[in-house]
């Protein structure tokens, strides 16, 4: 059985600074989205539970992916497809889905495609649905429990106020929620050996896509602005001894409606 996991490198959100309401992305290290790690973890678990499973990671990212790709490979993936061509940069959700679909088709065989329910940067949550459409696969989203058996996938969906149990014939596509598992921290020797696993780098040509069909040349949605909310600091300096300062703090917080609601 062939399992495909789609992953994307994103800037480490904890290290992004906001200046003049705009995020500063220079020099911010790239990491995998948290939910992407849930996806690869789930694939690794299937590989451990079911015989004869091959896991392929299809990863979008920059040329700095070389080191980063060791992580999913060490977590259990057998092979990686790297989509790092600069032409892919700046894609919107539809563009991303198109590139992923072509890459997945090119791998030759796919029984189960797993993604996180959204990327942790823009969180449009659209890519997986578009990808399922392009590959003409049944899709089960927001999966918190997953089981693969007898050519079928059985999944429990988190509907927030209820759980829904669904089943689909393979091939199928699922998106996983964070609660589905706890991604493993790969051991050093696994990371080291991951370096020897096969990797393929595919650009637009390899996928049969023209330059104007990918990345910023093929946007279906235009981002007009991407601003952080404004936060004015109150700049209140409390005076007096500790007891007085605490009283003044409680007063100020009550006045702001933070306390005593």
């Amino acid at each position, binding site marked *: 059985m062939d399992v495909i996991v789609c992953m994307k490198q994103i800037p480490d959100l904890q*290290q992004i600074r906001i*200046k003049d309401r705009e995020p500063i992305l220079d*020099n911010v*290290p790239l990491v995998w989205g948290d939910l992407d790690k849930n996806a690869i973890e789930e694939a690794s678990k299937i590989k451990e539970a079911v015989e004869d499973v091959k896991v392929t990671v299809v990863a979008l990212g920059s040329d700095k992916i070389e*080191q980063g790709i060791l992580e999913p490979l060490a977590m259990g993936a057998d092979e990686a497809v790297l989509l790092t061509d600069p032409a892919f940069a700046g894609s919107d959700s539809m563009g991303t889905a198109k590139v992923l679909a072509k890459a997945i088709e090119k791998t030759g065989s796919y029984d189960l495609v797993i993604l996180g329910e959204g990327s942790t940067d823009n969180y449009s949550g659209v890519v997986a649905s578009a990808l399922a459409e392009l590959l003409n696969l049944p899709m089960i989203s927001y999966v918190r429990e997953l089981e693969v058996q007898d050519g079928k996938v059985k999944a429990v969906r988190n509907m927030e106020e209820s759980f829904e149990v669904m089943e689909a014939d393979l091939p199928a596509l699922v998106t996983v929620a964070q609660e589905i598992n706890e991604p493993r*921290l790969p*051991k*050093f020797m696994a990371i080291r*050996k991951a370096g020897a696993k096969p990797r393929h780098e595919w650009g637009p040509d390899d996928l049969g896509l023209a330059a104007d069909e990918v990345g910023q040349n093929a946007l279906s949605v235009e981002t007009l602005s991407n601003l952080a909310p404004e936060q004015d600091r109150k700049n209140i300096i409390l005076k007096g001894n500790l007891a007085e300062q605490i009283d003044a703090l409680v007063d100020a917080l009550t006045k702001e409606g933070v306390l005593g609601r």
Partner: protein
Amino acid sequence: MTEADEEKVEVVVVGAGLAGLSAAYVLAQAGVDTVVVERGDYPGAKNVTGGRIYMHPLRHYLPDLWDDAPLERHVTRETITMMAEGASTAITLDNDKFREEPYHSYTILRSNFDRWFGDKVAEAGGFVLPKYRADDVLVEDGRVVGIVMGEEDEIRADVVVAADGVLSLIAEKAGLRQAQQPKHFAVSAKEVIELPAKSIEERFNLGPGEGAAQLYFGTLTKGMLGGGFIYTNQDSISLGLVVGIESLMEREPKIEVHEILEDFKARPEIRNLVADGEIVEYSAHAIPEGGINAMPKLYSDGIVVIGEAAGLGLNMLITVRGMEFAVASGVMAAEAILKAREKGDYSADSLAHYEELLKDSFALQDLETFRHVLGFMENPRLFNFYPQAVCDIFTELMWIDEKPKPKISTTVIREGVGKFLNWSTIKDGLGMLRI
């Protein structure tokens, strides 16, 4: 490669600071299978310096590294300021030598530099493993054979290089260092304050790319051992201070380091330099001050200790050094390991070559030469009496009011004799001869 070899590396370096990366760089270039384990998100994520690196020793030890290194400004002006209550006196050195290439020293931001250096190590063939923390050493038959990470991970190696910084856990776990004394450490707090390059150049009177290094001592540390510093980076200013941990512990009433830093920043001498800047980074760090008296054992079977983990840092009163020691010790450890590798012998006897190299270099010789500086600096008069006395004399000379002024010589002799001719100052003067 045999099956057994696949489960082990040749060298594991703990800590991606300047020492660890330097060792790894030399080893990787020589084709040694080297892994650097770093607990931060990337090399440099947790590394701090005040802000300036002296280049001449570094070019000697790593000649090919520096051309495209992300350094900040080359320092062209050195200022030392004595701070008293409500007054300060500064001495500035501006020398054309500082403007000659190759430059003497640069300001530096370690989060940028170390990350770049980590990439260099990887390019050279080393393996840098961030977000993994070494918690212990693996010991078999009395010799170190690797490191333990977390509950169930380990890396086996021919040699462990402990480069895990000032409070080195690895050197301690390997039994190479004793419990530490507070008097051998200082604590530093530092802010990086962002400002446009043009503002920095105007405020500090600098040409493009030129930098200023300023040290402050006196009342800013409120009688405690220590001092303040400012270094100009390309688009930011590093501002901070250092206080002896023992002085801080013994002080009554208690005071927090960040309060001292706030008071320092509020001084009119400092306030205007950083006005309208945005604080983009705040850090605190321990600094070794014990000098040669506080060094651990530097090697044992299967392990060497380098950089601040080895206590290699030196406060020479008017210059503060650590990074050159880190690089030099890293390179020398790598050389010793390469020699041990040729012999296939990583025993203590074989690795002792590292200490021999250190002894022949500036690193241990400077530590020896300046071994009495710490004792000298424990004198509180250095931080309250002298800066005040100097500022008083200058104020007396500069101040014009309606009363007739005495001759300059009269003022200098009267004030000078009054303030500086007594048993304490003579004793301090004699003490100074030891440093």
